[in-house]
């Protein structure tokens, strides 16, 4: 082996290695700049929490239409709803936030607090037609950070066949004692009572809130006697076998599957299940969740807001506003809320929805009576309160603590 050829080979190899390294670093710096929008300013990004909608769906077509109307190209990404807030925060940190963000309403105040969202005062997005109780979920510190694309809430679905077999007249169910009495009858008839979701996530709090508010409790004081009575109601249902133990691990979807099996008399679920209820062939009715002493309890509002995240290039807001306004225009919102099985956020469209589909009537009433979780200026305090609330529900239902102890330690942790 000749020493000079060995040396040459080494140099060649070293150069190759260097080139590979340079290539790798070039790649990594390139990916950073690929996200910036200067390269193609005619493209606007939209993020939404509807991953179920494929490219051919009405929603994506609507996005393209609105883009064409505003003279830009829309690049849309659908995220899982629980992922979207963190993805947006990370993107905002990198200066890569989308131009238009459709996001779950309780997250709006958190994102607004982070300085991620523009207020409607900045972008001149019109929110005058929107129902005040729905808009409140997107307001904090006197400013509004977007406009709802649609609203939903939860109520009690009931299975007419099961109730008939148990000899329960649904008109008799007016308050908590009469509901519990109905559950007792159903159990006696060999059927199952009620199913809901008490999982250890935001969904659990969402499902508990109508009972919590229906007892007269306030989110600012978790350990009130009213709160305890609401938690005791659920706890006793589990203890007496009116509700299955699996509620502790139920998401709203699994809870729906239990109700759709046809064995349950009641299921606490949302507007968005209407289409599935028909598909399952159930003979069902819908009842607003009763308050402790009768009347309908306030249920929390669900549904998403169309927001415009802060951009470095503020000239983009004009087009983003056009996109947001197009998505929430009267005709488009009607179409979107029909596909999503949501209630529209404006009275005008709500009337049209009820006229076309009388089944929506109880839902429109429920949405009008509903309350935003972050309303009452709770804003970013809500997520912390909610976490303690679902933990208390889990502790009490699983039997590791009494409802009273669970709620007082929850209040202690919120401070």
């Amino acid at each position, binding site marked *: 082996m000749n020493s000079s050829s060995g040396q040459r080979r080494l140099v060649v190899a070293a150069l190759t290695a260097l080139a590979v390294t340079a290539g790798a670093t070039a790649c990594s710096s390139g990916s950073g700049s690929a996200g910036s929008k200067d390269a193609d300013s005619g493209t606007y990004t939209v993020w939404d929490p509807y991953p179920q909608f494929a490219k051919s769906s009405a929603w994506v077509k609507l996005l393209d239409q609105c883009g064409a109307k505003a003279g830009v190209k829309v690049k849309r990404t659908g995220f899982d709803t629980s992922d979207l807030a963190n993805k947006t925060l990370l993107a905002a940190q990198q200066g890569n936030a989308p131009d238009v963000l459709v996001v779950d309403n309780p997250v709006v105040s*958190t994102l607004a607090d982070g300085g991620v969202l523009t207020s409607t005062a900045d972008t001149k997005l019109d929110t005058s037609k929107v129902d005040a109780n729905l808009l409140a979920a997107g307001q904090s510190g006197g400013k509004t950070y977007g406009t709802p694309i649609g609203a939903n809430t939860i109520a009690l679905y009931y299975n007419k066949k099961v109730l008939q077999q148990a000899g329960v007249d649904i008109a008799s169910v007016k308050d908590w004692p009469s509901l519990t009495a109905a559950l007792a009858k159903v159990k006696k008839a060999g059927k199952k009572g009620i199913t809901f979701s008490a999982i250890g996530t935001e969904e659990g709090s969402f499902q508990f809130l109508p009972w919590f508010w229906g007892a007269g409790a306030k989110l600012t004081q978790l350990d009130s006697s009213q709160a305890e009575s609401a938690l005791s109601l659920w706890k006793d249902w589990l203890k007496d076998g009116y509700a299955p133990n699996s509620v502790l691990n139920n998401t709203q979807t699994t809870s729906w599957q239990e109700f759709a099996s046809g064995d349950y008399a009641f299921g606490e679920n949302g507007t968005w299940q209407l289409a599935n209820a028909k598909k399952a062939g159930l003979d069902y009715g819908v009842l607003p969740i009763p308050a402790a002493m009768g009347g309908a309890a306030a249920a929390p509002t669900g549904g998403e807001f169309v927001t415009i995240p802060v951009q470095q290039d503020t000239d983009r807001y004009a087009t983003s506003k056009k996109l947001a306004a197009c998505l929430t225009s009267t005709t488009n919102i009607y179409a979107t809320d029909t596909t999503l099985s949501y209630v529209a956020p404006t009275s005008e469209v709500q009337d049209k929805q009820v006229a076309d589909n009388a089944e929506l009537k109880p839902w429109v009433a429920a949405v009008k009576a509903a309350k935003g979780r972050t309303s009452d200026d709770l804003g970013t305090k809500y997520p912390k309160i909610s976490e303690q609330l679902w933990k208390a529900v889990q502790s009490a239902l699983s039997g590791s603590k009494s409802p009273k102890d669970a709620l007082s330690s929850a209040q202690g942790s919120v401070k």
Partner: protein
Amino acid sequence: MTPMNQTTHPPDLPRPTPVPAEPAPTPPPGAKKRRRPASTQWAAWAFLAPVTVYLVLFYAYPLYRNLDLSLRNYTVRSFVQGNAPFTGLKNYRTVLDDPTFAPALLHTAVFTFVCLAFQYAIGLALAVFFNQHFRLAATLRALFLVPWLLPLIVSASTWSWMLNSDSGIVNAALHAVGVDPVNWLTSPSWSLTSVIIANIWIGVPFNLVVLYSGLQSIPSGLYEAAALDGANAWQRFWRITFPLLRPVSAITLLLGLIYTLKVLDIIWIMTKGGPADASTTFATWSYQLGFGNMLPAFGPGAAVGNLLVVAALVFGLVYIRVQRRQEALS
């Protein structure tokens, strides 16, 4: 031992020839004594560069960021704007004072050690069993790998369905033999057990594969000799298989430990760490703090994550020490 050490040296002392694999105990004498430090060293560094850049980009920087996250008070606002104030060890103190800390530590320890013990014992038993080379052994062994091949979301969801209190197949089977149903996932006294069972099932194939390959390297002559000397199967296992498998066992247990410490997906999918923290480990707690709430607590979340890294590191160092001592003995 000394000549072997030379090959483990970093490449700043490369051989003068581009074929360094010769196992010659002394450098070839004569002609190539002349050293060319400048160019070869330069080349050596160039060879090192890709892996160095890779390590810095994908290991050192994320670790540094995680450390930085845990030492600052991040709110949503300061996370986005990047001006979080430095607060020293405050996040660690928050985490240590949290009522979740003690149960999470206990659950992490129980989860890790119970899983490891069962995974190793079952894996070893199966490895010895399959080492008998009976008919269909290869097919059966392949079947045992299925848990490993399934995506975790599939296996964890399946376990979650099977263990459902009301409609799960496990409770249905218990009912058939007259046992009362167990609230596997929703009772505070059972949920940790349930996730441990699922994790053992998932971890056995890894132990089986590594230990089986370790068994292959034990010369069969030793068994024959022992059989001639009158050792029974039990004695052959404890006197030959187990001692000779020790190095393989050590690395299997270490890898299993690091893997088990940070198990998140199975627990998260099955119980979300619940009910009410009854199956919360450090991994799920860290995730819960950072991502499980609409208002992320990145600082404390990162602090818990770092505690996990330190724990894994400690066990890694223990392993290296034990290995050194074993080498010194042999």
